[in-house]
């Protein structure tokens, strides 16, 4: 059977499973809808968190990105895993003890302020929408690459399935489909990685092949011969590597769709251990990705460099990906052979390579899209068509699981934090549930619109999501737990300082892509790029919050008692008997 037939079969089966789970997990009350009834086993929550976290970008693009960046790819590897340590030690157990539904719930109650609640709700909605647009687009791209339907149709099929289980199942439906999606995505990632590791290093375990073979010394040698920096050496300023890693770690710990997952487990002990399971499940993919990245880089250069065009086009995967334009060649020196070299093979036109215009400034004759590193692995390793189909199902699982978690945050921020807590506190349980379901529907439609008509700067604004989460939520939640004296004036001042500083800096540093200027208004800030600037915003938030809180009155007695109570694990079950 062809890859396409297999893809139809496997994708249909997985979608049927997700829809069935959504139906099985349907909910009838707000506790089920927002926090899955707080009955999720810590291991199940770990798997759901891992799927929630690992997006289309983690699954399809990250290994390719690392492959191009070499050592500097470590900012993503450490940044997107180290945040779980902060989450487990500084946030998750206490938020679980607090035991409400959302992150703005905590901010509003702890800082006894509807203003703080509103700022937090708006930040949560903005962060989640920025993020979800890319996910929905990812669903469409996977569909178009594997099934051959156009991106818009793919987007609509994907959001229809996500909308179905999120609307009827709420957090409970999302949680258990995410568990299934984790299983699909990790198997789909692991099989090709095992196969290619065996082929290139003789060791089937990618982490072992990566560490204990002579592949890396050979790759470094090749890099040197071709004029690249060594794969294992950094090319960014150290301060920037440091700040990007920190912003991604802190941003991860501050992302609302991740934090709310820890409201769903039965008690504080389970919240702690569940973060460990989540990171273990994430680490399976995140320690495989850098191995895959170096294998693919080695293989790509070995297969292409110095070969004639006819020779490489006879290789089936080269021909296939050249047709999709994810891989393109040019012959600048007219020798009929391919040269791998630093720099762009083609000039850029509005951010994309223009294949009619080779870039004379570089000797490089190969363009490849980062995504083919993961997408082509099964073919490079000579695996069966059904495994290629499985990779498609894995990419879809990664994109859909993240999208569903984000849509739920958007829905709960509007329906719970803004509608129920701010506008209509007298709303009945049935009204609240209805508004929650309707909001998911609305969010799905908006996300689908952005998926079909993506703003050109989606990839650029992801820096926003992490920068804003790092500079807004993380400091004030940590201070709310660890600093009993922190008051609403301090928190609001800190949150606004962090948000405004980070937003302005990112706008200045990305003004070329956002506003079409020839060069960014500010290339960097003391060597720190837009991706890392959230770290500075976070520090400012901490400092301003602390100074302002010390200059103003202490928080009310009841709030200080609430903080004391947060710190004691016992009684989390009782706390879940929620208003």
């Amino acid at each position, binding site marked *: 059977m062809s890859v396409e037939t297999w893809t139809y079969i496997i994708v249909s089966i997985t979608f049927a499973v997700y829809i069935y789970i959504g139906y099985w997990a349907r909910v009838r009350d707000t506790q089920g809808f927002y926090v899955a009834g707080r009955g999720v086993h810590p291991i199940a929550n770990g798997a759901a968190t891992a799927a929630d976290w690992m997006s289309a970008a983690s699954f399809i693009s990250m290994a390719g990105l690392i492959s191009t960046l070499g050592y500097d790819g470590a900012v993503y590897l450490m940044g997107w895993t180290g945040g779980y340590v902060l989450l487990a030690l500084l946030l998750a157990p206490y938020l679980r003890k607090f035991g409400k539904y959302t992150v703005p719930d905590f901010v509003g109650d702890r800082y006894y302020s509807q203003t703080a609640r509103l700022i937090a709700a708006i930040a949560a909605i903005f962060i989640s929408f920025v993020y979800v647009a890319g996910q929905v687009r990812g669903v469409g791209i996977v569909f178009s690459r594997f099934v051959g339907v156009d991106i818009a149709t793919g987007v609509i099929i994907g959001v229809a399935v996500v909308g179905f289980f999120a609307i009827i199942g709420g957090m409970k439906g999302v949680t258990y489909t995410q568990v299934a999606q984790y299983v699909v995505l990790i198997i789909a990632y692991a099989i090709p990685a095992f196969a290619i590791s065996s082929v290139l290093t003789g060791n089937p375990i990618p982490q072992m092949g*990566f*560490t*204990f073979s002579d592949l890396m010394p050979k790759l470094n040698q090749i890099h040197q011969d071709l004029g690249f920096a060594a794969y*294992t050496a950094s090319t960014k300023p150290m301060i920037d590597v440091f700040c990007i890693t920190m912003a991604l770690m802190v941003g991860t710990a501050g992302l609302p769709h991740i934090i709310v997952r820890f409201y769903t487990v039965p008690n504080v002990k389970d919240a702690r251990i569940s973060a460990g399971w989540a990171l273990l499940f994430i680490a399976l993919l*995140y*320690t495989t990705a850098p191995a895959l990245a170096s294998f693919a880089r080695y293989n790509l250069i070995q297969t292409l460099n110095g070969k004639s065009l006819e020779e490489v086009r006879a290789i089936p995967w080269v021909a296939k990906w050249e047709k999709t334009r994810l891989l393109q060649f040019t012959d600048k020196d007219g020798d009929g052979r391919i040269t791998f070299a630093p720099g762009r093979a083609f000039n850029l036109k509005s951010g994309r390579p223009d294949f009619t215009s080779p870039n004379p400034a570089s000797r490089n004759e190969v363009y490849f899209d980062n995504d083919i590193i993961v997408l082509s692995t099964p073919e490079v390793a000579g695996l069966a068509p059904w495994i290629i189909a499985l990779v498609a199902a894995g990419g879809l699982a990664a994109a859909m699981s993240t999208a569903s978690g984000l849509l739920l945050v958007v829905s709960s921020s509007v329906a719970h934090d803004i509608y129920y807590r701010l506008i209509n506190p007298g709303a009945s349980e049935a009204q609240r549930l209805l508004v929650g379901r309707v909001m998911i529907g609305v969010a799905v439609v908006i996300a689908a619109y952005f998926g079909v008509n993506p703003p050109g700067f989606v990839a650029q604004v992801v820096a926003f999501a992490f920068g804003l989460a790092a500079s807004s939520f993380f400091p004030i939640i940590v201070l709310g737990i660890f600093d009993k004296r922190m008051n609403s004036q301090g928190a609001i001042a800190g949150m606004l300082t962090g948000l405004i500083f980070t937003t302005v800096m990112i706008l200045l540093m990305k003004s070329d892509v956002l506003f079409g200027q020839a060069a960014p208004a500010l290339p960097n800030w003391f060597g720190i790029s837009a991706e890392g600037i959230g770290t500075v915003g976070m520090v400012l938030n901490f400092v301003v919050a602390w100074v302002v809180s010390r200059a103003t009155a202490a928080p009310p007695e009841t709030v200080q008692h609430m903080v004391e109570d947060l710190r004691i694990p016992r009684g989390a079950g009782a706390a879940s008997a929620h208003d």
Partner: protein
Amino acid sequence: MDKSKAAAYWKANLNLIVSLLAIWALVSYVFGILLAPALNGIRLGGLPLGFWFAQQGSIYVFVILIFVYAARMQRVDEQFNVHE
């Protein structure tokens, strides 16, 4: 729970958090970034050691840290009789 016992429990928790976060920062920011160029002179298998910490080792340590925290805190909770 009386005030002094609550304070002692919180102090035990903070001490544990500070020591685990020190390890967290050591393997990632120190070994993986600040000292990576120096550590790269040492090899682990085929990989320079600083690079290994940045792309492999730090992640393994992160996973261990969370499980250690969960296990140690469970013991502290029981000792102070605040567990569930």
